[in-house]
């Protein structure tokens, strides 16, 4: 404890607040303007689309046949491309994603060697005797008058040269045909493919990236025609789609868009069931498990053409199989009627019938609450070969029970989690149309964040993978930690970088920095501003600040532009009390302090020795008898005149019971963060102190916080609710507390398990969870 004289009462506070060492050279609160792109008429400084914002548009009319004998796609179509840009275009670029499976594709060429100790059979087969020869065969490209246009295929991109430059505001219509071999997912996996079921000889097709798609052209990147290598996702333009899908006549087709000809492709019973599903409070089976089972044995007697229309979507995908069970439930998404539907084989049950459609509707409810009303009439989840992938109105999800129909707890949560995630992608990036190839985090991070919110409203203590701050600490501590604002192609580990860390950052922004009300308002504003438009990262950063009225540049800087981590350390706590200068108070205190001071070893041993003054008491004089702690009249007088000189409110400050604690905080990790303290006083009462991150604004490496209190502090805990991703819990306590390691905890747990009393109890435990 230290005693501070109150000569100039405010000097004490001031000197504590500024008793900081040298400033660090980098200002962590410096504004981001020098890094963010300059605002313009397309994108404003407040993060909204500008008054001249534009985007291209492409409308498609496609006829496609699914060849179930040879696993091929045969398509032809017409594209109307609308040039809404201020630029005149001489050529158009289209994406040919299937060409990653073309013989001379870059994808196998850039593959690195597999682990030779565990050489995967499919790789060997592909390399040795049965290479998969996919890739597009593209027929002639013709304009509306039937003239052939010059085209050039550059691996996964195709340039179509226009017969005349296309000026702003004009449209161009052209047609083309194509076909390709569908990849067998067991051998070559991807975001699309076919799965073969040996025991009944049938296939499930999940068909995506299956037609030449217009590359995006925008105000920030121009043509986005980065080659597709199999990992980066897409950037696409909105448009209307009219698609005719021809499949064997015993297939059930699930697709983006609204079915236009149910009378031609569905039975009267199926149509009746669909009608019933519209208003049913539970999923209704349109095709029952028994009917799907029977269809597995059927042989097609011909073909059927399913016609789907989709308005204002950026892509189109479908699935087809005779193995599909189909369930549906109508849902009112804030005034917009939606059919939530699931398609899955018998192999997906009992998981799929229980969870898929329920998870779709749950996602629509939660996501719509935080963003905008779901605008599409359809939301579909399909089980097939693809582990988890999103397209407008439809997504593919992999988890299935074991063959015996039982499933583990992990599989159950994997299914619920992936359905929420993939259906959630309808919002980001299918509607808020960010550029996935450039900035994966802008859809995956935001979607993972919302997935966390939706999961936490599914059931109590839902085991979410991402969202809680503690889940990202190990990644942030590692040397593989890249800033989130790194181009997707260059990120070393995309999972934690583009999904986990931004999800955590947004959760912290919501819970700790802004609070739920401000965050939710700003986040909704961003979502609405960019609905059916194409935002860039700066539009997100600016919108969140603009709508929350909070300067968050320090937050974006720390969490999105650096690879630093969070670690604040409670370095030391110093106690100060007021020197009242009142001898009646101060002298007894000094006496007490002297009495409480430790007695040295020599003094202890010398104490019993007989002293000379014992034998010659005449040697004792005034100073031996004087009580140095008794207030002298002169001291009392001096105090009285001191008090007289003070103003009334200044006198009140001479309170001997007042404590001033100086808490020294060190920023070990680098990221500046709010300081959350739980202070426990001697009487057992706990108080929480939530200090904004701006405490670091003048000095970002060490600061001292003053805590004035009439009570004495017993202990302090930093980040008591584990909300800041603080990496090192061992420096989060005053006084310091040992923190148990995972290893120690495991050993202790194992030792208690061996305790016979405990074993007796576990005998009666229910059988392992998860099995149905």
């Amino acid at each position, binding site marked *: 404890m230290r005693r501070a004289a109150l000569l100039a009462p405010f000097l004490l506070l001031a000197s504590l607040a500024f008793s900081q060492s040298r400033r660090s050279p980098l200002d962590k609160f410096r504004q981001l303007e020098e890094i963010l792109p300059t605002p313009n008429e397309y994108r404003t400084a407040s993060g909204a689309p500008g008054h001249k914002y534009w985007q291209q548009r492409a409308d498609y009319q496609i006829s496609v046949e699914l060849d179930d004998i040879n696993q091929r796609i045969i398509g032809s179509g017409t594209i109307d491309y609308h040039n809404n840009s201020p630029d005149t275009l001489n050529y158009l670029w289209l994406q040919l994603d299937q060409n990653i499976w073309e013989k001379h594709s870059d*994808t196998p060429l850039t*593959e*690195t060697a597999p*682990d*030779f*100790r*565990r*050489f*995967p*059979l*499919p*790789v*060997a087969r*592909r390399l040795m005797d049965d290479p998969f020869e996919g890739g597009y065969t593209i027929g002639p490209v013709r304009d509306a008058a039937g003239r052939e246009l010059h085209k050039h295929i550059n691996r996964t991109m195709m340039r179509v040269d226009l017969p005349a430059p296309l000026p702003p505001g004009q449209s161009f219509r052209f047609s083309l045909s194509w076909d390709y071999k569908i990849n067998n*997912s*067991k*051998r*070559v*996996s*991807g*975001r699309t493919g076919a799965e073969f079921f040996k025991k009944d000889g049938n296939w499930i097709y999940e068909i995506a990236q299956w037609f030449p798609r217009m590359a995006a052209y925008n105000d920030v990147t121009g043509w986005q025609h980065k080659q597709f290598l*199999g*990992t980066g996702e897409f950037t696409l333009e909105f448009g209307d789609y009219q698609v005719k899908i021809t499949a064997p006549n015993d297939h059930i087709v699930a697709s983006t868009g609204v079915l236009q000809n149910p009378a031609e492709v569905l039975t009267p019973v199926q149509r009746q069931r669909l009608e019933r599903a519209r208003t049913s409070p539970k999923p209704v089976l349109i095709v029952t498990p028994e009917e799907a089972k029977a269809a597995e044995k059927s042989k097609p007697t011909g073909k059927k053409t399913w016609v789907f229309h989709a308005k204002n979507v950026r892509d189109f995908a479908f699935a087809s199989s005779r193995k599909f069970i189909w369930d549906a439930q109508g849902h009112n998404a804030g005034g917009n009627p939606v059919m939530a539907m699931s398609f899955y084989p018998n192999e997906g049950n009992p998981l799929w019938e229980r969870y898929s459609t329920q998870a779709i509707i749950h996602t629509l409810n939660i996501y719509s609450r935080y963003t905008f009303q779901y605008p599409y009439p359809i939301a579909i989840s399909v089980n097939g070969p*693809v*582990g*988890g*992938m*999103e397209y407008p109105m439809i997504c593919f999800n992999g988890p299935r029970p074991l*063959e015996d129909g039982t499933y*583990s*707890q*992990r599989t159950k*949560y994997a299914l619920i989690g992936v359905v929420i995630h993939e259906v959630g992608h309808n919002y980001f990036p299918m509607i808020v149309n960010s550029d996935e190839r450039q900035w994966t985090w802008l859809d995956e991070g935001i979607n993972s964040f919302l997935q966390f919110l939706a999961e936490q409203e599914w059931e109590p203590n839902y*085991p979410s*993978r991402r969202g809680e701050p503690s889940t990202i600490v*190990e*990644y942030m*501590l*590692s*040397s*593989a930690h890249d800033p989130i604002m790194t181009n997707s192609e260059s990120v*070393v*580990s995309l*999972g*934690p970088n583009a*999904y*986990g860390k931004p999800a955590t950052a947004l959760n912290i922004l919501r819970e700790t920095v802004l609070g739920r009300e401000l965050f939710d308002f700003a986040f909704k504003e961003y979502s609405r501003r960019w609905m059916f438009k194409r935002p860039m990262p700066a539009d997100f950063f600016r919108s969140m600040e603009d709508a929350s009225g909070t300067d968050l540049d320090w937050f974006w800087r720390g969490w999105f532009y650096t690879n630093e981590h969070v670690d604040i350390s409670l370095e030391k706590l110093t106690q100060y009390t007021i020197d009242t200068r009142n001898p009646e108070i101060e002298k007894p205190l000094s006496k007490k302090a002297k009495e409480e001071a430790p007695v040295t070893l020599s003094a202890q041993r010398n104490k019993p020795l007989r002293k000379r003054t014992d034998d010659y008491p005449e040697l004792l004089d005034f100073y031996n008898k004087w009580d140095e702690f008794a207030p002298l009249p002169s001291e009392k007088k001096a105090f009285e005149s001191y008090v007289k000189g003070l103003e009334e409110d200044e006198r009140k400050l001479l309170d001997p019971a007042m404590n001033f604690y100086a808490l020294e905080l060190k920023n070990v990790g680098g990221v500046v963060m709010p300081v959350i303290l739980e202070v426990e006083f001697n009487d057992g009462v706990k108080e929480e102190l939530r200090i904004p991150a701006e405490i670091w604004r003048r000095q970002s490496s060490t600061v001292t916080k003053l805590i004035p209190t009439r009570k004495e502090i017993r202990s302090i805990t930093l980040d008591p609710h584990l909300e800041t991703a603080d990496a090192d819990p*061992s420096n989060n306590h005053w006084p310091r507390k*040992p923190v*148990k*390691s*995972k*290893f*120690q905890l*495991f*050993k202790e747990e*194992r030792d208690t398990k061996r305790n016979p009393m405990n074993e007796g109890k576990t005998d009666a435990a229910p059988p*392992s969870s*998860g*099995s149905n």
Partner: protein
Amino acid sequence: MRRLLLLAATSSILATAHQFHFGHIDANWNSRAKTLELAVRLHADDLEQLLRQRAGRPLEIDRDAQAEPLACAYALETIAFDESRFRCLGMKVTTHYATLFLEAPAATPPRRAKFRSFSGDFPDQINTVQRLTDDHRTGSAIAFLAADQWKPLRP
């Protein structure tokens, strides 16, 4: 010349949409017991996939008695610290992670390590090792990329 062991499994060369290929070890040198204690955290999905290949059947790691010994064997194959001979104490599985606990006698803190779990399966696999002495971190975590073999653990 080496001989290739062919394993029936889905090709993992082409990554699916949601990759999260990240492993982590807390490597604590216990100065009193003179032991090296490893808590090895792997993604449960990846580990389950791998153990299915090894067991040749659709095993689930959170409810299959064979999972722990197989997982321990895999950890001992792909993880090394100096010449330490580890004993596998067990595995703990949660919804998303599997954590394996290994222990070895060690007179001094480890000098070098190898952490190649899933390094041959995913080109973007990253494994990190956090060194600790008596449960206190010493330095930042060291990252092992897919191509990395032995790496020094700087003091």
